[in-house]
């Protein structure tokens, strides 16, 4: 289904904007959104485990700024980058702990940390932006292999492969699905649901840090607001890629496709001269449509089989409440 959407989209844009469907062009365009894909991959795990992370954008800003500030103080850019990523992981860890220990909806927790981390990032980035990174670093974001395939795309592909492997072939990956599918049963089966969930947030934070590195090297600069409003795109990518907002299902290949679909959409709209504020309308509509389609599918299969598709949630399909709520 997602593949069809992708092909249709490419077709539409090729007609509307001549020169769009140039494979080399296409490849280099991916540099504009692979960082979103990296964040979407980790967000997938968070959502599949039944939660949500609204703070990814702010975490990215914080990581990026930390990297920049450390570099400014003389630390080697690569070490600063690693540090930035670790900071992201730390921020994610805080999210995870708060979610698991208080039992409050992840949407509320990560909404609050969105503002806290974002504010921290702005404060740390006192002067507006940090730029002038060494060329070797900038090559990560802008370089090509064989002159054609962007380094960023390779990194994205590698991360995707790792995530796909973890999801399908490791115990942890299967636990993530299990916890999202039915947390209570998982808990009673002896799964340490708290630890599973905390790790999803930690990884989400780490990937936000990686995204900051990618974007920072692409633009050769970082700013305190570099991640603002990214969470909307990231979550939309996950949903378009088939990750169920209720947790327990989704595929990495779907998310990769989702990244391509939304990324190319943004590029195509740019070619058609649509402002980014107008593009946010499009993203919002797509978000609602994507989750609407998911809900519609649930409704359809419910009617066909005559049983609720979400076991453990009772006979009557409840009105959806905040994401991650464990009460029915």
């Amino acid at each position, binding site marked *: 289904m997602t593949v069809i959407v992708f092909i249709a989209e490419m077709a539409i844009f090729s007609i509307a904007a001549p020169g769009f469907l140039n494979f080399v062009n296409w490849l280099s365009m991916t540099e504009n959104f692979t960082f979103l894909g990296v964040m979407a991959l980790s967000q997938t795990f968070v959502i599949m485990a039944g939660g949500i992370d609204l703070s990814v954008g702010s975490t990215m800003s914080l990581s990026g700024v930390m990297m920049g500030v450390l570099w400014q103080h003389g630390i080697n850019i690569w070490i600063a980058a690693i540090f930035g990523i670790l900071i992201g992981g730390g921020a994610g860890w805080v999210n995870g702990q708060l979610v698991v220990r208080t039992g*409050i909806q992840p*949407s509320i927790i990560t909404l609050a*940390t*969105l503002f806290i981390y974002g504010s921290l990032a702005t404060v740390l980035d006192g002067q507006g932006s940090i730029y002038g990174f060494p060329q070797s670093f900038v090559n990560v974001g802008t370089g090509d292999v064989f002159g054609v395939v962007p380094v960023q795309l390779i990194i994205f592909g590698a991360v995707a492969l790792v995530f796909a492997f973890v999801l399908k072939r490791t115990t942890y990956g299967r636990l993530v699905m299990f916890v999202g599918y039915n947390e209570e049963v998982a808990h009673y089966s002896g799964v340490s649901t708290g630890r599973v969930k905390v790790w999803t947030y930690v990884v989400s934070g780490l990937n936000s840090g990686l995204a900051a590195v990618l974007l920072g090297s692409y633009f050769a600069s970082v700013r305190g607001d570099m991640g603002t409003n990214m969470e909307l795109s990231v979550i939309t990518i996950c949903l378009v890629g088939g990750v169920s907002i*209720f947790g327990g299902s989704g595929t990495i290949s779907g998310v990769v496709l989702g990244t391509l679909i939304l990324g190319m959409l943004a590029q195509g709209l740019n070619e058609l001269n649509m402002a980014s*504020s107008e593009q946010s309308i499009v993203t919002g509509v797509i978000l609602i449509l994507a989750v609407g389609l998911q809900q519609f599918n649930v409704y359809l299969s419910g009617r066909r089989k005559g049983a609720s598709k979400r076991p453990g949630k009772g006979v009557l399909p409840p*009105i959806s*409440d905040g994401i991650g709520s464990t009460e029915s």
Partner: protein
Amino acid sequence: MSTTTLNRFLIRIGDNREISLAAFIVVLLAVLMIAVPSFVVPSNLSEIAQNSVTICILAMGEVLVIVTKGIDLSVGATLGMTTLIVGQLAVSGWPIWALLGVALLVGVVAGSINGLLVSLAKLPPIIVTLGTLSIYTGVMYIITGGNWVTNLPESFQRLTSWSLLNFFPVMVLYMVALLLVVTIFLRYSITGRHLYALGNNAGAARLAGINERKVIVIPYILSGVLAAIAGVLYLSYNGFSTPSTGSAANLQAIAAAVIGGTNVFGGRGSAMGAVLGALLLGIISESLVFFHLLAVWNDAAEGVIILIAVVADSLLSRSMRARGA
């Protein structure tokens, strides 16, 4: 633990969020009066109160939604949208009654989109309102082409600039009027009580015959209408609006509602509490300025406050449940 009358009295106050909030505000003002005497003067307090009115009203709307275990992230954008639409029409000379009508219409439409998506399509409120937030924000840019709305007619600005008996600023009076309406609705109307029921135990409420689908739409529409009204008041009071108006208000409204005792798990909350929460937030952020805290820390401070409020609330309700209250 001994149950002297004093103890029982204190427990009753502690359990009642509104009273403990009001007490906290009084204590805070007392502390501030000692630390920064120039802060606790009538003119400053009156300004704080009037500036908080917008969040007070938005928070009231959030209470309605959060009580049903939902959330509305788009209130700030609805407010902003209303200010820009009404603003541009006001500048073109539309009469006040028509402007109010337009505002109500914007609020109803914005709220209905949220409400219908949540109730009919059964989409999660967090996703729906995240989506409408970006849609309305984008609309705000399109309406104005990125420009500010200024030069509002005198007659419009006069809506909010006078004081009753030269003492009560009319902004505060408008807010009190809305507070009364919302409180009566929540506590004494059938629909209001249904909202609490749905938030407390949706399954039981459904089995008791409450038509969930019809009822769930209402808090979102009301939230939208309240946001629109707040927008009109904001526009009249401040005299201008920008394409980014209201972007910070979303979190503030939720924070105020939660501080005011609205439980994010649904089933508990009051408009009065939300208003007190908004006032508290207003006092805190104003006083942060007095203590020379940079404006950029405001967001972080609010995020921390909402975390503290939500966590404390969850711990409190857990211990209350353990006590069997």
